[in-house]
């Protein structure tokens, strides 16, 4: 259901005759070619991401944290250009914080998602940002909203994003069932991310997971050697 995601061409057009002396990764913008995922369960959401940030073919940061807190119970998963997504996340954090203080109430996830959409849509020509907004609020409990490149906004029970997401749509469609528990969601997310990281060159490193509910946020990291091993290799 997500709009066609034209991913940052991290391997694409760099093969050019002029590039022999200076490797192309020195001149590429930093991209979070990535895999991100968010799942709703009854009582909250589970979000996950890989940890690789690339500049062309070079891994600029192998332990990136792409799960960015926007508010106490609202997180966003960032994919696309690192600079753009960091800037948008900063702007929305400020706007949401201000709004929440004005209302004297914790903000709604839908509000955060709409703030992301507003920025991503208005500046769609200049930005390269695909974001998943996920969190818990009192009105609708756990929610996941997808704001892909271009600035669409849609609520989904499960959403994936980033360059590695193409490899796990099938896995996600066949393994997600409504009414899963938090532990099942964590298993599903970590398995999906592992599979995507195996196949996508721009995703890798460790798996970062977080679960958000009324009681708070629990974060964990699954290191490379602790990931589930699948049978094709």
């Amino acid at each position, binding site marked *: 259901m997500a709009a066609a995601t034209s991913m940052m061409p991290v391997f694409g057009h760099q093969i050019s*005759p002029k590039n022999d002396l*200076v490797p192309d990764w020195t*001149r*590429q*913008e*930093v991209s979070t070619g990535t895999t991100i995922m968010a799942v709703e369960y009854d009582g909250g959401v589970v979000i996950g991401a890989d940890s690789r940030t690339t*500049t062309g073919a070079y891994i600029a940061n192998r332990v990136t944290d792409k799960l960015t807190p926007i508010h106490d119970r609202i997180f966003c998963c960032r994919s696309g*250009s690192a*600079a753009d997504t960091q800037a948008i996340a900063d702007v929305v954090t400020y706007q949401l914080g201000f709004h929440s203080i004005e209302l004297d109430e914790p903000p709604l996830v839908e509000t955060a998602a709409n703030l992301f959409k507003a920025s991503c849509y208005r500046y769609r*020509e200049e930005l390269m940002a695909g974001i998943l907004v996920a969190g818990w609020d009192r009105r609708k409990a756990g929610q996941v909203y997808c704001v892909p490149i271009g600035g669409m906004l849609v609520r989904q029970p499960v959403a994936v994003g980033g360059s590695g997401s193409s490899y796990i749509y099938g896995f996600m469609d066949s393994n997600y069932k409504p009414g899963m528990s938090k532990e099942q969601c964590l298993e599903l997310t970590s398995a999906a991310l592992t599979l995507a990281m195996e196949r996508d060159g721009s995703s890798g490193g460790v798996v970062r997971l977080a679960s958000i509910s009324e009681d708070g946020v629990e974060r964990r990291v699954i290191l490379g050697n602790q990931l589930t091993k699948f049978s094709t290799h």
Partner: protein
Amino acid sequence: MALANVLEIPAAGFSFENAPRNAALEGLLDGVQTPKPLKTGTTIAGLVFKDGVVLGADTRATSGEVVADKMCAKIHYISPNIYCCGAGTAADTEKTTDLLSSNLAIFSLNSGRNPRVVMAVNILQDMLYRYHGQIGASLILGGVDCTGNHLYTVGPYGSVNKVPYLAMGSGDLAALGILEDGFKPDLELEEAKELVRASIHAGIMSDLGSGNNIDICVITRKGVDYIRPYQESQYKDSRKLKYKYRPGTTPILTEKVVPLKLEVVHETVQQMDSA
């Protein structure tokens, strides 16, 4: 909105009017590329150790294929507790770090506090993101403040990474290899200095754009130790001869004087009546 037929004085700063056109051109024509931030020759590295942060850099500044400065300072002062290594376009890193340093000095005077490393990072990120990569500065910021020891890197497009160790510049792959192999959390001071020195040395040996001496800057709660140079290049040369010539070195064999014939032209000035 300005009218199309009224002359507009261009605003100060970078103009991005041509950015969409350039992007379209890049797509249409093969091989046409808009200029990207240049990574000129440098190896810089930094790591967090038990008592603070160690930053290291080589000292070569290149201008094309020629070494422009053999002893340039790539570790810039930001505030008493924060220093910054700069890679990329030398002018950009100089000016950006100067601007940051001035802003933080004003903040310190206004608030009576030492600036925190996150402040410096946020200011840099804002500025570099606003300029969309036109300012070619890749910076490693390290410092010690009341919240601990921090090392951040800011890229030319405005992306920030908080890391325990890092290398940047054209020699970064070699330097990072040494750092990846030798880094452990909570190193002692001498080990940390030696590791940074070894990583810059690897960058110098493996990259043509890096060379000459190695500078090290150690920042701890107690203060800053800026050791310049920490290690001198073993390939220094000394000039064997003097290249000044005394008058009379070239003997004069003959002298011939030829007067120039000048034509004297009669000159009159006539005043014009302006009607």
